[in-house]
């Protein structure tokens, strides 16, 4: 990718004084090109292309309830893709995000069941555990200076083992017990895993949370000092520190944000399926990262948006479910998925190249 993409997208280029054509650098570029230069536009076009493709190829997709199903699948990826994207803009990534979701769900479930507590106690403790895992990741990273690949790979393995071993130790099985008849379950289910009707279509509450979180993340990224810090530490940690950005705080808090996301999705899984298998979640971290990258975030940090990963996650859900709606041969399922995603990323890349040329 070209270096020109490293420019901070949060601030628009100041209006060029006059129309001096002598020097290309100060010239105001056409609106279309300026739009295309934004990180989320490529993925937006990719998502539209995929949507149109499946609207034509798979008739059931045209149905409102099918779209609700696609959005549900997208939201379970998308809620996590948001903090993962912010973290990536901040220059790091988290391989433990997938199993951390399950860790959170297991914690809440087992604590409530084993001690026969109101499930809200489990939910709150799980939040604390998830934030602590994030803080641990961030703290270790900052203190040791190790790459996030190594630190979070370590946490990934630890959590995978702890999920299994502790669940087995506590419940005697590798899945948790059913908590659906316990106090507080119904309320928690309303918050994390309910659904509502819109024009006869059953929409899952996670879709609403996904969009709320996306709006919040966009506001933080573009309108707050913290948002600037994220771009700064992702662009260049040392110069960020030199101009007074609290690098340590920013990095640790970003990892904790991922912890928050893991908690939220974990609670959704728990209150949606009542029990949790301790081996789940492995490999999903790559899908979160993929959604963020497809959404226009650079793996090297310093560039990206919060709305891009929304389209990235949507594209993932759309392709995954669209293939099923189209009724294609399931043996090719993953190959289709890979081809569609690569295609989408290439469109994304081409749009950015075109936009940032000259």
């Amino acid at each position, binding site marked *: 990718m070209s270096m020109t993409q490293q420019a901070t997208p949060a601030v628009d280029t100041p209006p060029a004084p006059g129309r001096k054509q002598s020097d290309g650098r100060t010239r105001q570029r056409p609106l279309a090109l300026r739009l295309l230069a934004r990180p989320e536009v490529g993925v937006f076009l990719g998502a539209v292309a995929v949507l149109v493709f499946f609207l034509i190829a798979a008739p*059931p997709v045209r149905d409102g309830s099918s779209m609700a199903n*696609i959005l549900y699948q997208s939201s379970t990826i998308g809620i996590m893709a948001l903090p993962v994207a912010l973290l990536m803009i901040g220059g790091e990534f988290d391989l433990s995000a997938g199993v951390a979701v399950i860790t959170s769900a297991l914690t809440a479930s087992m604590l409530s069941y084993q001690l026969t507590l109101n499930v809200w106690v489990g939910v709150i403790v799980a939040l604390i555990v998830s934030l602590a895992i994030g803080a641990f990741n961030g703290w270790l990273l900052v203190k040791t*200076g190790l790459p996030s690949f190594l630190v979070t790979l370590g946490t990934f393995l630890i959590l995978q083992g702890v999920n299994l071993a502790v669940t087995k130790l506590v419940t005697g099985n590798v899945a948790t017990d059913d908590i659906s008849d316990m106090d507080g379950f119904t309320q928690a289910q309303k918050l994390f895993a309910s659904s509502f009707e819109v024009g006869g279509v059953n929409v899952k509450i996670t879709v609403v949370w996904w969009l709320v979180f996306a709006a919040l993340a966009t506001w933080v990224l573009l309108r707050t000092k913290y948002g600037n810090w994220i771009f700064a530490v992702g662009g260049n940690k040392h110069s960020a520190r030199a101009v007074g950005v609290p690098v340590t705080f920013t990095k640790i808090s970003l990892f904790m944000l991922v912890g928050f996301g893991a908690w939220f999705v974990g609670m959704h899984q728990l209150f949606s399926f009542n029990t949790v298998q301790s081996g789940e979640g*492995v490999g999903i971290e790559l899908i979160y990262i993929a959604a963020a990258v497809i959404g226009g975030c650079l793996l090297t940090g310093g560039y990206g948006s919060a709305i891009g990963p929304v389209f990235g996650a949507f594209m993932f859900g759309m392709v995954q479910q669209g293939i*099923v709606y189209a009724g294609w041969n399931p043996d090719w399922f993953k190959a289709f998925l890979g081809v569609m995603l690569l295609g989408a990323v290439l469109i994304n890349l081409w749009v950015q190249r075109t936009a940032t040329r000259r």
Partner: protein
Amino acid sequence: MDRSSHPRSRRIAPVVAVAAAAALTLAGCSSSSGGKEAEEGAANASAGKATTPRMTVALVTHQAPGDTFWDTVRKGAEAAAAKDNIKLVYSADPNAGNQANLVQNAIDQKVDGIAVTLAKPDALKGVIGKAEKSGIPVVGLNSGLSDWKKLNMLEFFGQDESVAGEAFGKKLNEVGAKHALCVVQEQGNVGLTQRCDGVEETFDGKLDVQNVNGTDMPGVKSTITAKLKQDPSIDYVVTLGAPFALTAVQSIGDAGSKAKVATFDLNKDLIKSIKSDDIQFAVDQQPYLQGYLAVDGLWLYKNNGNYSGGGEQPVLTGPAFVDKSNVDKIGEFAAKGNR
């Protein structure tokens, strides 16, 4: 704010890291109540204890971490080991090469017997030959029904996946299914594919296959929903593992479909769903029995020279059907997590 430049704090960082990792592990443990281990002990079937000399048996499976099915196999093996005065060494790896290394490891430990699953027989052929050469008896369980004889193994305990599938297909005919969907939670798994093929063999109606990603439950849920929307004529969803059956019930609700659910394999939550008619029936290959018989078979061979199945025929542990007619009886055992 950033103190990482201090040389002292840099030196203690790894120590703190290890301590924090330990604390993290402990924090997970401390949520357990003391009574749980007692419950685990009580949950095992007990039939007295053998006075034969202590022997060591290795059980090497291709279990993926956190799978409820394999946990039940292991519990059966542990129950037999406890009864037979056997020290059981359990290890597992879904990767065939790694599983072969684990068998080699057991040979190096000079165990008195090895029980092994043959999900990928070719990869294990070499080490199994080595074990036999060094005089260690080897029995097969679960997967490898068509290969255990070729590998000169002593005995085999398991279910013929095709036979189970065929029995399942016949049952679908009995309950009047016309168009079934076979949901595969692990694309490319031979045993799972054989089940769907077996169903297709005997099922008079139409059978579709759908792959889903078993480690992503929300994904499983929406994929089954999508398939039911795509083809509203599907009237039976066939899952190949108990947790996926429970999820399929939710998908049917989401899709507004009238389809019913039946499944391979059991767990304790499934029992409730069979009682409440959410799930019609389950075909059970009795994983507990597989683990139990494999270990017990090695004990019998060592102490009494017995060959289960006469050394010629496999010992079949399935398919056993669980439906509303017998669910109450089996439910008692399933509640302990042993069925």
